[in-house]
């Protein structure tokens, strides 16, 4: 299929052709009949200038719209996106018009990333605390041992 840029150019050119065809020299001469009778060559010259100037202005305008809207690039990228979606039949998702609804799915990937990050750091923290807890338990045992030693020494003296 022709690309969007080609279709766009063709459609505009066709518009221009048909517009010029509609405003033919015959039509022009018949509207300016009095002047045409007086000066047919001049009439022709003025008409030709009118047509070429009109075409040039319209082409210039179209180019300006293309540049301003970056249309060439957008058309090509839309062609690509549409081509990728060719295999799909059913209508695709569209904004619901309720921003908070639509933003949800856009936020979900970040939330999922955040959730897995939190899970990871929580697991690390639990492991870290496990190690510290082992040291604490060892410290408690050591203190209990020391207490017993002191008690034994005291009893020995007693």
């Amino acid at each position: 299929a022709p690309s969007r840029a080609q279709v766009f150019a063709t459609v505009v050119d066709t518009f221009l052709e048909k517009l010029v065809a509609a405003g033919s020299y015959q039509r022009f001469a018949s509207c300016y009949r009095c002047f045409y009778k007086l000066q047919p060559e001049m009439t022709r010259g003025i008409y030709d200038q009118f047509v070429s100037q009109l075409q040039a202005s319209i082409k210039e305008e179209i180019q300006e719209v293309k540049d301003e809207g970056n249309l060439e690039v957008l058309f090509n990228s839309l062609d690509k996106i549409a081509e990728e979606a060719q295999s799909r039949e059913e209508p695709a998702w569209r904004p619901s018009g309720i921003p908070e609804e639509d933003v949800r799915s856009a936020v979900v990937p970040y939330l999922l990333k955040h959730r897995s990050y939190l899970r990871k750091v929580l697991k690390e923290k639990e492991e870290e605390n496990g190690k510290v807890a082992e040291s604490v338990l060892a410290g408690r045992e050591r203190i209990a041992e020391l207490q017993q030693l002191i008690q034994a020494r005291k009893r020995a003296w007693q």
Partner: protein
Amino acid sequence: SVNPMAYEAQFFGFTPQTCMLRVYIAFQDYLFEMMLVVESVILKKLVGFPDCKISPFQIRKSTEKFLLFMKDHFDKLFSKMEEVLLQLVLNIPENVLLPEDKVQEQYPYSKEQFQALQDEIRQLQQQYKAEASAGQALRAELEEQKAVQAELEKILQWFDGLENICREHGTGNFKESFAFLTQNSKKLQDVLKEVEEKSK
């Protein structure tokens, strides 16, 4: 009933209708401008033919006649062009999803699912905070243990010192020495008593 073409506006950055309106107005302006230029050129040319009987009014009439005709065709052609462009070029086919919206299909979360995910994240954050404060509490206990351990070891060292004193003074095992000393004192007492009796 107008289709706002919002999705196209999201992609192009402008609504296609606005774009077409912009083009229409520009084209129309050109057409009008051109007609005025044509008319002014003809009027200028007529200055060169003083004896011709063509009045500016007649020229204006001709201009309006031609412009009316052109405008009519212009509008018909333009609406055809607009229809084609809005259908084939400036529109996003129904089955097309823009890249930035891929997430909508990857994560079609309902409100409840979204809420559940947020709750889970909140819970995880709370849990992490709790775990972090538990870690702090454990570390604080480690510090406490160091101080307590140092105190207890000091007491044990004190006992060691006590026993060292005994050892330094030849009483390796204090208890035995003390018992030995007590026995000796008793013997001494007995001897003393005997001596006293004999001396009597």
